[in-house]
């Protein structure tokens, strides 16, 4: 097996001047190295030839940070990585257009100079009036309008993308094992870029660690591994790191929407008009589908008289959008539902009653031509409202509590792509009576394999036990588009039923000829064939299997609908439409703006439930992804470079975020769905964002026009509503004068420094392997540290190891000192409690002595990180941890890392987590929770160096965030906390965005005195300044 590593662009926009692979090939263990020129084929097809704009790797130019530039295959992961580092490459960076505004501005750099393009950076432009929209707006009794925008969301599959490709020179066949939702696309795209025939590419079955749309597009790393395998004739494996997944995986699309709704005096919607800008990123994958999603909801959600849609899909220099659950629906539904609430308010109607009045009904044909055959929207609204206790709560909740409701519509079995209109599936009956179902769709955790087995079992009237499913395999399974666009249950499910029926009729024929009767005389029921006229003749399915041997049949289902009009999008998109409503209750913290979700009630029209456990799971999952999208998930960019590239600061919901969720399924038995089922799993995300936003608006009395609704946004809105303006005149405070002056000058200094930094920046350490030593005595530890330059003491490793992988630390050697006597003990001295440096955080929390003397410390320490981390992280390690600034951690060449010639990106960039006090050249705050606590308690750090020991008050430990006064070979051995004075109390409060995250702000408070009189008080703040303040 060879291992592949990929060289990625460090720039959002640059010309590639030269690439020399020779130094990489000289690295021992490196077998092959490639660039785009080694791919014989043409560009990826992606959304179709008209939009085909991406080569297998960057060609001449890079257009986004993280783009694949070259790749190496080597005998080990390490050698591959060293090979990539050795590649010599020259870039000429140029101005990027990282946002839609920048890309559409006059004089913007042309990201893809192409002849057929509309105007600079516009990929697609849609302007459709489905009726007399202008007239409807003229006639309206009320018009509401607003601008809505949201950024990019990542799917964050827990398993990163990975692939093994194996090319057999003898047969000319390429086999691929990869986590993909759509083996069909993998083959099609590989054939295209590698120049192999489709029949020579086989995708095999694997388990997939999550998809959510993120694994349904062009597989760049798969093609790279495949090419390397083809060239070397050996299997090649590629595994993306979480960081690579973030910078070059597939994301959702950002968009801005100007939406207007016109209603008559009763609130009937006369028209809706939208003007949308969809951010395509640097290449086109699924952008046009996002444009379509806006059109679909604008024209179809609730009864709409007519609709007008203007939309532009725009190239920007950032990661290309792919697809994500909902395909843009949650965003446009949020905009629409915000306005529905506004209209209800203006017309003095209850939001639920109003929605019931305008709800779609079976028999409706929408302005876009959707024929709604079955519709449970009204029932869904009623049910969700009832479950949340709407009548008792609406308008009656205490301040800062609120409820909201929203609906959704979703096509089920849609006809969007030509290849998506049909499905084929195969069933093989084995001689022992067991069956295997073969499908090219892929179960990425949706339990679709179970559902398909169930449908086959139900069709045959047998139990599921003997039925297994092989998914993804393109050799064993017949053609199918794959698992995307909510199609499997509906389309492939119907194919499975057809296959089951075919199996029965095949067997019927054989039995008939054996029994010498007509096929129509053979009856089949519940797994038994019988002769209608001769009761004694019977054959069970397993007996038939035994008698006739292996039998393979296929089933096909085709959606008998025309494709919508390519220009206007008019047409009946889907065989059926699914509906749903969700109601949400929230509580807002008025001090921090933090939104806590208390209850969610979901009611969904799913046609018919096939597998309740699976569907409930899908619903909970979709809802919680919606909660993330509504409140916290958003890629933060610095000039096109994603900076919040970790699961700490790209915040997906964790278990503490899960509220009470009630689920109801409304069954409307669709005539065309398999046993009446409609699409159900994917769209559970669609209404959540809107319902949460409406609930927050209800709680604080302000509507939000930007997602996610972060604590910062809520707080700012509350302040604005209350007309409180924080007094931000830092220059009036003497201690801030110098900093304030620098801040004032920064806009002018920043570009100059950024440029200078490019030449003068010190490189980041790139350490993959290092030595680790174990010291069992203090002297040994210090001696080893003194002897090896660049060594570091290792505590729990929970900060050091991620830091090494992020290129933050570059140690030559780690010295574990946990074996040094005493460093893991907590003891009392005459005046103090001595905590050994290597005591873990949980060791501290569970210690009786600490609990007795400093209960506030026990409690405060339990707010640090997560339990796995607290079990390893040490007290000294917490104090000495590196800063968490997202610019610094995401390899931005900033002041802190690359030296004084470089700027601090937080001053002008997104600095919501940075210092608000005393930030000088670097604005990163000290986030060590123990620092304010121990400093407030008057603790001292005891250290040992070569022949010396020191006692340093924690207060004086820091020079700057992440930097201490300790010398390289100086080791903290213990921390001494003075015994508490009589009549004293200590407490620690912390606000973090999720429990376990680093502090946004924290305060340690120690008071001495009585309830009546405080004699002494000490307060130390954390998370707000470079040092505990």
């Amino acid at each position, binding site marked *: 097996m060879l291992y592949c590593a990929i060289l990625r662009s460090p720039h959002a926009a640059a010309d590639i001047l030269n690439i020399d692979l020779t130094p990489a090939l000289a690295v021992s263990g490196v077998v092959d190295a490639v660039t785009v020129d080694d791919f014989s084929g043409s560009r990826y097809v992606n959304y179709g030839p008209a939009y085909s704009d991406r080569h297998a790797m960057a060609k001449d130019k890079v257009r986004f940070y993280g783009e694949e530039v070259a790749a190496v295959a080597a005998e080990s992961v390490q050698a591959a990585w060293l090979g990539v580092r050795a590649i010599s490459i020259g870039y000429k960076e140029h101005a990027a257009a990282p946002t839609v505004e920048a890309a559409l501005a006059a004089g913007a750099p042309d990201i893809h100079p192409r002849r057929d393009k509309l105007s600079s950076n516009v990929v697609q432009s849609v302007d459709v009036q489905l009726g007399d929209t202008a007239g409807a707006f003229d006639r309206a009794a009320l018009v509401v309008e607003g601008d809505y925008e949201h950024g990019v969301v990542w799917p964050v599959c827990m*398993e990163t993308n990975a692939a093994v490709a194996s090319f057999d020179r003898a047969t000319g066949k390429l086999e691929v094992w990869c986590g993909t939702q759509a083996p069909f696309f993998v083959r099609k795209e590989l054939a295209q870029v590698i120049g192999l025939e489709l029949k020579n590419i086989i995708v095999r079955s694997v388990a997939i660690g999550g998809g959510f749309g993120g694994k349904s597009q062009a597989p760049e790393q798969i093609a790279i591994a495949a090419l390397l395998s083809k060239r070397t004739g050996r299997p090649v494996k590629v595994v993306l790191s*979480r960081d690579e997944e973030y910078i070059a995986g597939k994301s959702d699309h950002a968009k801005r929407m100007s939406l207007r709704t016109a209603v008559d005096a009763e609130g009937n919607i006369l028209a809706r008009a939208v003007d949308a800008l969809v951010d395509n990123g640097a290449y086109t994958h699924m952008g046009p589908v996002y444009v379509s999603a806006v059109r679909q909801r604008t024209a179809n959600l609730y009864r709409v008289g007519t609709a007008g849609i203007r939309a532009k899909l725009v190239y920007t220099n950032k990661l290309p959008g792919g697809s994500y659950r909902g395909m843009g629906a949650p965003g446009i539904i949020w905009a629409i539902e915000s306005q529905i609430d506004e209209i209800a308010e203006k017309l003095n109607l209850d939001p639920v009653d109003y929605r019931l009045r305008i709800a779609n009904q079976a028999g409706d044909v929408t302005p876009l031509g959707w024929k709604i055959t079955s519709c449970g929207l009204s029932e869904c609204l009623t049910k969700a409202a009832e479950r949340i206790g709407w009548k008792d709560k609406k308008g009656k909740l205490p301040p800062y509590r609120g409820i909201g409701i929203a609906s959704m519509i979703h096509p089920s079995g849609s006809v969007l792509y030509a290849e998506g209109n049909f499905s084929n599936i195969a069933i093989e009956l084995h001689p022992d009576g067991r069956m295997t179902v073969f499908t090219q769709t892929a179960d990425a955790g949706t339990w679709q394999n179970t559902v398909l087995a169930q449908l086959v079992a139900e069709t045959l009237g047998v139990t599921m036990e003997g039925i297994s499913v092989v998914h993804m395999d393109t050799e064993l399974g017949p053609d199918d588009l794959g698992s995307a666009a909510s199609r499997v249950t509906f389309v492939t499910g119907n194919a499975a039923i057809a296959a089951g029926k075919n199996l029965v009729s095949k067997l019927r024929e054989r039995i008939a000829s054996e029994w010498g009767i007509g096929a129509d005389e053979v009856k089949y029921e519940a797994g038994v064939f019988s002769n209608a006229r001769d009761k004694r003749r019977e054959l069970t399915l397993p007996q038939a299997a035994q008698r006739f041997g292996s039998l393979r049949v296929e089933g096909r289902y085709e959606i008998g609908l025309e494709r919508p009009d390519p220009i206007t999008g008019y047409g009946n998109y889907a065989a059926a439409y699914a509906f749903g409503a969700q109601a949400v209750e929230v509580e807002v913290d008025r001090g921090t703006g933090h939104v806590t979700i208390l209850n969610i009630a979901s009611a969904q029209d799913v046609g018919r439930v096939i597998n309740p456990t699976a569907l409930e799971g899908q619903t909970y999952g979709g809802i*919680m992804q919606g909660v993330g999208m509504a409140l916290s998930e958003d890629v933060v960019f610095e000039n096109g470079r994603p900076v919040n590239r970790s699961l700490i600061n790209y915040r997906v919901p964790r*278990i503490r975020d899960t509220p009470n969720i009630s689920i109801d399924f409304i069954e409307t038995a669709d005539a065309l769905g398999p046993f009446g089922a409609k699409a159900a799993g994917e769209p559970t995300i669609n209404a959540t964002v809107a319902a949460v936003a409406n609930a927050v608006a209800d709680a604080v009395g302000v509507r939000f026009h930007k997602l996610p609704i972060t604590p910062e946004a809520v707080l700012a809105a509350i302040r604005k509503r209350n007309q409180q303006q924080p007094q931000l005149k830092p220059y009036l405070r003497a201690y801030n004068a110098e900093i304030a002056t620098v801040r004032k000058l920064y806009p002018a200094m920043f570009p100059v420094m950024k440029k200078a930094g490019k030449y003068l920046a010190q490189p980041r350490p790139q350490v993959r392997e290092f030595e680790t030593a174990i010291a069992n005595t203090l002297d040994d530890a210090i001696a080893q540290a003194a002897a090896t330059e660049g060594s570091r003491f290792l505590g729990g490793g929970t900060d050091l190891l991620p830091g090494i992988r992020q290129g933050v630390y570059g140690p030559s050697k780690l010295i574990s000192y946990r074996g040094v006597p005493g460093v893991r003990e907590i003891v009392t001295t005459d005046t103090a409690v001595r905590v050994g440096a290597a005591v873990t955080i949980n060791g501290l929390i569970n210690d009786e002595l600490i609990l007795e003397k400093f209960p506030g410390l026990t409690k405060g320490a339990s707010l640090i990180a997560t339990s*796995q981390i607290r079990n390893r992280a040490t007290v000294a390690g917490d104090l000495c941890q590196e800063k968490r600034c997202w610019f610094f951690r995401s390899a931005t060449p900033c002041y802190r890392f690359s030296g004084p010639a470089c700027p601090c990106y937080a001053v002008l960039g997104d600095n919501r987590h940075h210092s608000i006090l005393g930030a000088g050249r670097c604005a990163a705050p000290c986030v060590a929770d123990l620092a304010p606590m121990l400093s407030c308690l008057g603790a001292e750090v005891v250290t040992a160096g070569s022949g010396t020991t020191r006692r340093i008050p924690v207060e004086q430990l820091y020079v700057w965030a992440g930097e201490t006064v300790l010398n390289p070979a100086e080791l903290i051995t213990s921390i001494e906390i003075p015994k508490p004075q009589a009549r004293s109390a200590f407490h620690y409060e912390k606000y973090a965005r999720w429990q376990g995250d680093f502090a946004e702000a924290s305060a340690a408070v120690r008071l001495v005195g009585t309830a009546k009189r405080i004699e002494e008080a000490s307060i130390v703040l954390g998370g707000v300044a470079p040092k505990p303040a």
Partner: protein
Amino acid sequence: MARDSKTPTSKSGTTAVSLSVNGVDRKLVVGQHESIADVLRDRLDLRGTKIGCNSGECGACTVLLDGVAVCSCVTLAATVSESSVVTVEGLAREGELQELQQAFMEHGAFQCGFCTSGMLMSAYALLSQQRKPSDEAIRTALQGNICRCTGYVQILNAVRDAAARS
């Protein structure tokens, strides 16, 4: 024109460690930079332990180290000689699923399953310390484990149920 720096550093030694892995004593020679997760997956072929972030942020790699849950991706194997490690493969006995695993099955507490081994190990660590944990305690124990698929409801139910059964 800016040129990317090329200063790869690579130096590594090996260390002999002895570990009890799922009750079996193992003597191994490991790279000094290797995490427990690396050793489990690449040297011992115990692939139930998953790597989702390699940074201690997702919990997919959770194993029990001397009885407590830790992120095996940020724990260096060379530093834990003489310790005991229990992975998800160590839960089932003679083909019988452990109670917690049974409860996960019954409640449908996984979808793609990638987070499941970490979830199980965190929950197992909790239940071996507290027989009847409160909801608060369950959430605290699982806060370090991200699941993107399930929304956590069925996971919570499964752990509650397993606790009630024991």
